[in-house]
């Protein structure tokens, strides 16, 4: 009996000691990964669960007549109908129609992203180059450039809405006089797209400038001294020193801005409105508000897929740079 007890205690002890011994035998790297497992599990659950749940919702029918959020399982019907235009009447605007690029949500979003991000990058780069110089009052210039970035989207939208509101702002009369805008820009798709892009560039160029400035300030100044001694012009210095060394920071900035721009909603809703200028996120919100949660989930998932694809382009480019380095 005593022998049996001792045997049992021995088994318990060895069962308790075994994990400790196993951790002892782990390499430094292995032990580090072991410690990270709980965090990774938590983060994966938090990141993946909403995605899986949204995807599951997107495979169901809308339930307009029931207290349930979604109806029966319909597989990929929502996706097929969205991409083939069979849901355009419900969406208010076409999801994808190359024949109407300024009315279709996907093309409007891509046009907006391409123009806004390009302008923000160019202007942000210019601002960063200025801020990288030493001059009197640099601190105040930095503050001035940063102020638009600090303005909340709702206020930013209101500023531009008021500027182009008949009877209140002078923007419409001014630009209509120059032949740029129609008499009612906030109900005109093209005019509203321009207003939204300008508003976004005004606010977000500072964000690009800050990230690019961080890259610029990490460039070793002695490289420029060497370049000067070697007789390199300013353009050559930019092309062969500044740009290659800032490119990793620039790519990170572009990645952030592109992802953010693909989800544009607030500035549209506060200026011309989603019915005037439909974006992908506008469609998610409008279908959600209509109680079509399954359709909304499908649009959201397609949007996430497109954003992921765009992000992948940057990530591949970034990996190429690292391999090259």
């Amino acid at each position, binding site marked *: 009996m005593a022998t049996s007890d001792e045997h049992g205690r021995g088994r318990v002890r060895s069962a308790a000691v075994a*994990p*400790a011994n196993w*951790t*002892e035998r782990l390499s*430094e790297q292995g*032990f580090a990964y072991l410690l990270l497992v709980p965090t990774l599990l938590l983060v994966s659950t938090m990141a993946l669960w909403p995605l899986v749940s949204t995807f599951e919702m997107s495979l169901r029918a809308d339930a*307009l*007549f*029931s*207290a*349930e*959020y979604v109806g029966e399982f319909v597989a990929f019907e929502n996706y097929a109908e969205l991409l083939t235009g069979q849901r355009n*009447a*419900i969406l*208010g605007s076409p999801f994808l129609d190359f024949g109407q690029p300024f009315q279709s949500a996907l093309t409007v979003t891509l046009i907006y992203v391409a123009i806004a991000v390009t302008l923000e990058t160019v202007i942000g780069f210019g601002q960063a180059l200025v801020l990288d110089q030493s001059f009197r009052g640099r601190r105040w210039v930095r503050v001035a450039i940063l102020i638009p970035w600090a303005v909340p989207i709702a206020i930013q939208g209101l500023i531009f809405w008021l500027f182009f*509101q*008949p*009877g*209140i702002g002078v923007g419409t009369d001014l630009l209509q006089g120059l032949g740029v805008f129609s*008499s*009612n820009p*906030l*109900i*005109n798709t093209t005019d509203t797209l321009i207003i939204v892009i300008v508003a976004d560039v005004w606010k977000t160029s500072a964000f690009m400038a800050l990230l690019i400035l961080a890259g610029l300030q990490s460039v070793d100044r002695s490289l420029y001294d060497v370049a000067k001694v070697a007789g390199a012009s300013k353009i050559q210095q930019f092309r062969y020193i500044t740009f290659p060394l800032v490119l990793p920071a620039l790519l990170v900035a572009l990645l952030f801005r592109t992802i953010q721009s693909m989800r544009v909603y607030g500035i549209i809703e506060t200026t011309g*409105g989603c*019915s*005037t200028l439909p974006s992908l996120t506008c469609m998610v919100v*409008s279908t959600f*508000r*209509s*109680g*079509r949660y399954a359709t909304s989930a499908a649009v959201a998932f397609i949007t996430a897929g497109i954003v992921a694809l765009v992000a992948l382009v940057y990530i591949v480019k970034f990996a190429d740079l690292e391999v090259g380095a």
Partner: protein
Amino acid sequence: MSNDSSSGAESGPGASSSRRRFVKAVGVAGAVGLAGCQDGAGPGADTGTGDGTGGDGGGGGTVEMAMPSNVTDRAEDTRQALYDAGLSEDIEVSFLSTSEISGDVQAQYRSWLNAGRETPDVFRMDSGWTIPFVVRDQLVNLSERLSDDALSMLDEHYFEAPLESARAPAQAVGGGGGDTDTGTGMGGGPRGELYGVPWQVGFPTIQYRKDLVTDAGFDPEGESWATEPMTWQRFSEVISETHGNADVEYGFNWQGTDYVGLSCCTFNEFMTTWGGAYFGGRDTLFGPVGDRPVTVDEEPVHQALAMVRTLIHGSDDEYALDGYQQISPNAVLEWTEGTSLSPFTNGNAVALRYWPSGIFEAATAFEESGDLSPDDLGTMPIPYAVSQDESEYEGIGGTASALGGWHLTVNPNSPNVDAAVQVIEATMQQSFRTFQFSELGYLTGDQRLFDPENVGDVDPWGPHLETLQVAGENAIPRPVTVVWPDQSSQIASRVNAVLAQQQAPEEAMSALAGSLEEIEQSV
């Protein structure tokens, strides 16, 4: 050296004991954490029933009402008014503040009701989206709960349009044939049963500068403008002549931007007063979805669009109607309520189409201006183009005011449904309605409060009650169904595009009819 020593400890023999201690410590902490979770659930678990019904209901006689801030700010007065109206003092009334934005309130309620939440017990629901909740069986059937006296009072003294927007629709979707759609899962409760009691109503009218029209030689009182609607043609002539004679910037202001207010209300009025409709007559306003006619691509609707284009763009417009004057600024195409109101309250417009709150705003602004007085504010019903007799559809034509307002409904998950119904009955008492009218500034659905003899000369409503009474009798609800949000945005976009001369009326209405039909068939 100390740094070296430290790093040496991480990789040297000391690391073994560090790891062992760390793993042990994490194990103990984890065990304590788990135990803590279990302990934390313990006492709370005693109070719940475990079946999702939420314990004992929190005291039985407490009724929570979801209300906007202007009520919750006066919670004590409102509570007292309920008790003064005969509510038992055993029932405690509390208030939950909700958003002022209708769409946000709707989303919040849907979320709560889908989750089976027990409170609030009483919801304040927009008449523009109560029916979808009825159709989804998410509200208490008040026809079965209200006393006979209360139901008789509603039948006898309340405007019909607000009540219609609180009843189970005749049929939610096409194809059913019985007296109830409950069994199909697609249509709420028994047809015509009441699920909400009007709390507040809103009927737009034309508000105008009486001093300016009088100066221009018109006689509003002699011609009984307050109660006898005029035609749109005459209205355009009056405003045009007055505008030409006055030193103000705008003629007739209204709300025409691409938003829900255009489809539900402003254009709904223009169209109805021309004898047109979205889905046939009043009997098919609320369904059956997919089995009712789509009637936007018809002559009265084209005519209404042509008239509105004439009001904005004048006789130069390709589709201008003869005899109508240009009286509205191009800016109406971007205006909503706030932007259209301020020029009028500033004394810079002849007339305004607006909700009753505009009467209060304008009268107050005129009084404060020094140049004007509340007596300079006149009101008239919305003008018309064809009479009801001339319209193809029953109850369409003549003057028409879009129905706005809110209902009180009861949460079916509430453990205090009886008490909640008693609170609603208290709100229907004359003393409480008078409190709402005179203290909270609400027009209620009780027609007796539109009679100056019953309420006295309450500023600033007194001179305008007769006009509001006419508007209430001719109110037209929006065609609320579960697909109305989708249809509403399509209508607003197309109509706004036509008014902005971006599309031709017939072409746009033909495309709109196709979209509306597609949405009808999508359920």
